[in-house]
């Protein structure tokens, strides 16, 4: 729970006002620090040329001017990110499950997954376009390619490190593989899996952008290319900022889901 300080006491309900402060106040402060830093190096002491990193004020202006277009791009990219991410989650957990189920599969395929993951995705553009055409399909594939690996790895790790005593319990009940998975290994793996999901989420956003670079006809990534092509860095950075904001929002919802889904983790472990 959200008590400060070192001394533990009997857990009790935390007054909700306090929670709101920590949940909203600190991130707001963090944001202020970040924007302040940005402003400092671009406007106050202009260390960095605006063509490279425009000051926040210019970015805001650019956003105001092109808000409809940028928000349209945001909608497109968000949709792609979320859809591709969900695809990754489903496929990643299934692959992770496969690798966890069989040592042979793990030994056989995990080097391949690492290899696929290490290919710079930019180089795959033509391949994707040629085999999948333009638009949603190559973009979702790109999102998948960028974000599946952390999910696979964390799922496999989670599923193969079930506490021995719980695995023994399942075995003593002669539970089937599927039952053991569903009732014991998967729930026990969830804390691990969520780490993978949280790592994968920003990667999914990047995947959408790279996909748009290569095969898109709209979205924030496309806008970033277009506006940096005409050196309108303020608008390009407005798109980048929107993208970052989207990621933070999606990431936060993931954290929320985790907190709701796994209350027991916070109770059986010690935070700080």
């Amino acid at each position, binding site marked *: 729970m959200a008590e400060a300080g070192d001394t533990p006491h009997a857990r009790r309900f935390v007054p909700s006002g306090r929670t709101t402060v920590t949940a909203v106040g600190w991130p707001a402060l963090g944001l202020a620090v970040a924007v302040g830093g940005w402003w400092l190096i671009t406007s106050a002491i202009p260390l*960095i*040329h605006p*063509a*490279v990193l425009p000051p926040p004020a210019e970015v805001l202006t650019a956003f105001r001017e092109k808000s409809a*277009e940028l928000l*349209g*791009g945001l909608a497109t990219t968000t949709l792609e990110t979320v859809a591709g991410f969900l695809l990754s989650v489903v496929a990643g957990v299934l692959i992770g499950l496969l690798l966890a189920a069989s040592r042979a599969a793990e030994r056989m395929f995990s080097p391949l997954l690492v290899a696929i993951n290490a290919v710079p995705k930019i180089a795959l*553009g*033509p391949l994707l*376009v*040629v085999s999948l*055409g*333009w638009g949603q399909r190559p973009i979702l594939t790109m999102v998948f390619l960028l974000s599946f690996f952390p999910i696979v790895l964390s799922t496999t790790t989670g599923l193969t490190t079930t506490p021995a005593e719980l695995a023994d319990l399942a075995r003593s009940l002669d539970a089937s593989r599927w039952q053991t998975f569903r009732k014991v290994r998967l729930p026990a793996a969830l804390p691990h899996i969520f780490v993978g999901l949280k790592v994968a989420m920003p990667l999914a956003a990047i995947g959408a952008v790279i996909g748009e*670079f*290569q095969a898109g*006809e*709209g979205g924030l990534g*496309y*806008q970033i*290319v*277009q*506006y*940096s*092509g*005409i*050196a*309108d*860095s303020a608008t390009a950075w407005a798109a980048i900022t929107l993208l970052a904001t989207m990621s933070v929002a999606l990431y936060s919802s993931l954290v929320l889901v985790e907190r709701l889904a796994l209350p027991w983790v916070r109770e059986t472990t010690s935070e700080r």
Partner: protein
Amino acid sequence: NPDNPQQTSTSSSKPLEKVTYLTSFGNFGRDAYAWVAKDKGFFREVGLDVDIKPGSGTGDNISKIEAGAAMFTPVDLTGLLLARGNGGAESIVVVAGIQQHTMAALISLQGNGIATPKDLEGKTLADSPGSVVRNLFPTYAKLAGIDATKVTWVNGAPANLIGLLASGTVAGIGQFVVGEPTVESVAKGRQAVVLPYSDVMNDLYGNVLVTTTKIAREQPDLAKRFIAALMKGLVHSIDNPDETGQILKKNVPAAVVAPAAAECTLMSAFVRPEGSGNVVGTIDTKRVARSIELLQDADAMPAGLTPDQLVSADLTPKP
């Protein structure tokens, strides 16, 4: 699609044939002519329904055309020659010239101490490895009478170059000539200094329209119709830069009118140089041969390639 009803009715007897076209890179003013041809109904007039997709540069575009993801695209002839010299792009054939002279250039800013090619010595320039400007630089240096070894090249992704120049990190960058207005708009008041490669390499073409040998052989009629309509768009775009900018904006919301129009204006001189007559898109095989020689002399490609292996003389627009 805002085609006027008259044109629609003339071609409605037959179903439109589908064609996929790739721009050279993204959707900027220099590539807007395809949108013009589509928007003005030039393609429709000749019974084509053209799908325009943003390209990603010469290398990627060649791959995509060879693999059949698109049928036509403009690529830089020098890049194509280099690819061919390396044993690639074997099924690619040139069917029209877009820019009669290479638009490759070095762009600097006033105050960087560069006014003539000679001033480049001792300076640092940026461009991405594999770009035309960089690949041709030794040849350019030789022809312009400067010592290429005294120039330092550093790497920079295409999208980053203008920023590098504007922020003073490098003295000059590789760019197409049409990049000048963009550079100036970013440099806020400083004027651009442009050193076009075409000053010393007059034979070299800029972008040329390519397709596969298979299409050239099996669908010459379609190719001819496509080329004609695209050239019509090209002419219209350099004649009406402002309208072109509007058309681009209408079709590609992320485009911006003013810089696109400026690019068209600048491109005009390369599409229809003085004394080239009224027809655009022509390819002079003798010039191509000399370009090949140039690259061979610079050791950039092996001997053996002849223009007729590369250019489909049947299809190129004739003066």
